[in-house]
């Protein structure tokens, strides 16, 4: 009996691996860290397999384990998690010259600039297909908190994108120069 649930747990975990990896990459960014996160999550899920309630959402259960693992490591790494917002804002202010190059940076990098809790909320809602209620459950917070994190994440990304699109439409001095010089050639 126990063997049977074990077997199906393995199958379910295998089936969820691609999603788990996508979520880990969204949270942790760097590949090594993301894969360590997947490994930790699998081991915890296996050890706690008996606490998974049949009929409930396996993916939500796994994502909960993963994000709790990630944020507890995150907290250990830097104690002031409460101020991730202010910190990110400070970073934004401190990098005006980098903004000029944003059009060369892909969406991924812009997403990585967001505070981890906002990035998490945006990914859960906008990409993983969870409802606000499910995301709130996964993150252990109120639905309103998820909504405000998603809104702040969207706003910040929009600001970054708006700035980079302004860059796209501004005249390129080098191009203007080369056009001006070209007709002189015989």
């Amino acid at each position: 009996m126990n063997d049977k649930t074990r077997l199906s747990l393995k199958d379910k975990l295998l089936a969820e691996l691609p999603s788990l990896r996508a979520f880990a990459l969204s949270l942790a960014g760097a590949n090594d860290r993301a894969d360590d996160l997947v490994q930790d999550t699998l081991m915890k899920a296996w050890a706690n397999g008996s606490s998974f309630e049949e009929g409930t959402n396996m993916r939500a259960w796994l994502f909960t384990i993963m994000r709790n693992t990630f944020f507890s490591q995150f907290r250990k790494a830097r104690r002031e998690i409460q101020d991730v917002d202010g910190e990110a804002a400070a970073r934004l202010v401190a990098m005006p010259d980098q903004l000029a190059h944003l059009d060369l940076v892909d969406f991924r990098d812009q997403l990585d600039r967001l505070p981890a809790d906002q990035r998490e909320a945006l990914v859960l809602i906008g990409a993983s297909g969870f409802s606000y209620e499910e995301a709130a459950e996964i993150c252990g917070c109120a639905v309103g908190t998820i909504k405000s994190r998603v809104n702040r994440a969207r706003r910040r990304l929009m600001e970054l994108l708006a700035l980079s699109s302004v860059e796209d439409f501004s005249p390129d001095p080098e191009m203007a120069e080369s056009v001006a010089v070209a007709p002189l050639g015989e």
Partner: protein
Amino acid sequence: MSQSEKDSNPVEPTLEPLLQAHIGKQLRMMYDAMAREPVPERFKLLLDQLEAGENPQGQQDGQENGLENGRENDHIKAGADKAGAA
């Protein structure tokens, strides 16, 4: 060159729905691409090990079914027993 949009907000109102849609699309494309990446073999091996009852971390002995490997699990087992009794 409309003068009606002198806002301190860097995002113009007319741009917003477009940018929202753009963000949503980019986000899903990025996520789907990550989910389509081939899963590294190490995870399948890990699950095989767990299934075989080997403890991949090799700290404590957890032969029976991989569950009895540490304090954390005892705690969870206790919780599960309690839940079962309720």
